[in-house]
């Protein structure tokens, strides 16, 4: 497009700058604020390990732990979500809200540490051998 035509269109079309508190529309997959579901969190601290901006902090306690998230430090990279095995973390698909006080959006949850899940009993080698042979026999038939 001719640059002068473009300038004229901009001049006549008005400004595209949005006034506060309006925010731009985002596309699908946009990475916004991170949220946690305390019921699903196991306290594995993988999110903290993967957070290079130190936005997620986990303070261990006796039988519980404190999970804190500071959006002011977050780079919204989404690596914490990728590392969360139990899908306890989710991310908004909208721009983070504008805040005026430092730490206004900071959240902190005290989560009771869940007992480790009981290990599944190991199958006996003999039984396994039987089943394998049974399958093999079935296949032959």
């Amino acid at each position: 497009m001719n640059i002068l035509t473009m300038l004229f269109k901009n001049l006549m079309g008005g400004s595209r700058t949005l006034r506060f508190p309006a925010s731009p529309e985002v596309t699908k997959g946009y990475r916004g604020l991170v949220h946690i579901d305390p019921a699903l969190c196991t306290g594995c601290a993988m999110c903290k390990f993967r957070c290079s901006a130190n936005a997620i902090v986990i303070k261990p306690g006796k039988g519980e732990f404190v999970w804190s998230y500071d959006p002011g430090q977050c780079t919204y990279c989404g690596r914490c979500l990728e590392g969360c095995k139990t899908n306890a973390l989710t991310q908004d698909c909208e721009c983070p809200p504008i805040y005026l006080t430092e730490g206004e959006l900071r959240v902190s949850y005290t989560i009771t540490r869940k007992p480790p899940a009981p290990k599944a009993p190991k199958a006996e080698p003999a039984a396994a051998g039987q089943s394998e042979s049974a399958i093999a026999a079935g296949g032959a038939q």
Partner: protein
Amino acid sequence: MNIITALARMLIFPGLLFAIPAAWFFLWVERKAVALMQGRIGPPFMQPFYDFIKLLGKDPPHRPGIAGMLMRVWPLIAVASSAGAVGLLPVLPASGGFEGDLILLLALLEVPSMCIIAAGFSSGSIFGEIGSAREAVLSVSYNIVFLLAILSIAASQHTFSLEALALLPATPLRWLGVLALLVCLPAKLHLNPFSLPNAEQEIYSGPITEYAGPELAMWELSHGLEWVASVGLVATLAAPYIAVWWIAALIFVALSFAIVLLLSVVASATARLQIDTTVRFYWQCTLIFAVLAVASALFMRFRA
């Protein structure tokens, strides 16, 4: 011209009382026009004034030694010379203007550019030095065209006097000279496509990288006054002579405004050129134009 008229011209119109608000106004018009053409809101009307006040309120950086003293002095000299250049503009020739000539005005207009070059080298910053070197090369390139344009105007009208030039009716050669001056203005005011010396994205404003606080405020003011003086010179040469002073003043302001808008459109529509392209542009294209204008002016003069 008596002393009161001279003082009124230097201090009131088109001197300091008019020039400083006009400088802020021109800076705002340029920023606002560029913003609107880029689809942005742009700064509010008072923003250049707020910027100036804010910078004045900051503590200047401590700079010991001669280099530090020089760095403090350059912006003051630039402001003084720009303000002097504005005061010389023959805006109201009918009311008894300054009896100076174009040479003095040109000299005063050139001082801020030299101060910027010196400031960049005084700062010791690599960005400042690169910016100063660019400014020096650019200055050598566009000033020849600028001077030849002024010469062609003076030769076509048989005078260097600002008053006489403002009173005389314009000739076709004068229009050619005015056009050449207009081509030089983006380089003189560091606007795109000739904004090499203060390229923000490359060399962080070049010579004024190391400036802050009141010293930077002075540079901003000097830049604004340069706007008024340069644009005012072209507006004065382009404006027809009108005896009624307020109409003359109105036409001067309107023409200046139109030139600022034109420069803003050029700045918005173009990208920054490389230094060799810029130099080639002035030496190959515009120089031929200016030389032709001077030759024609001299020929007409001898024929007359």
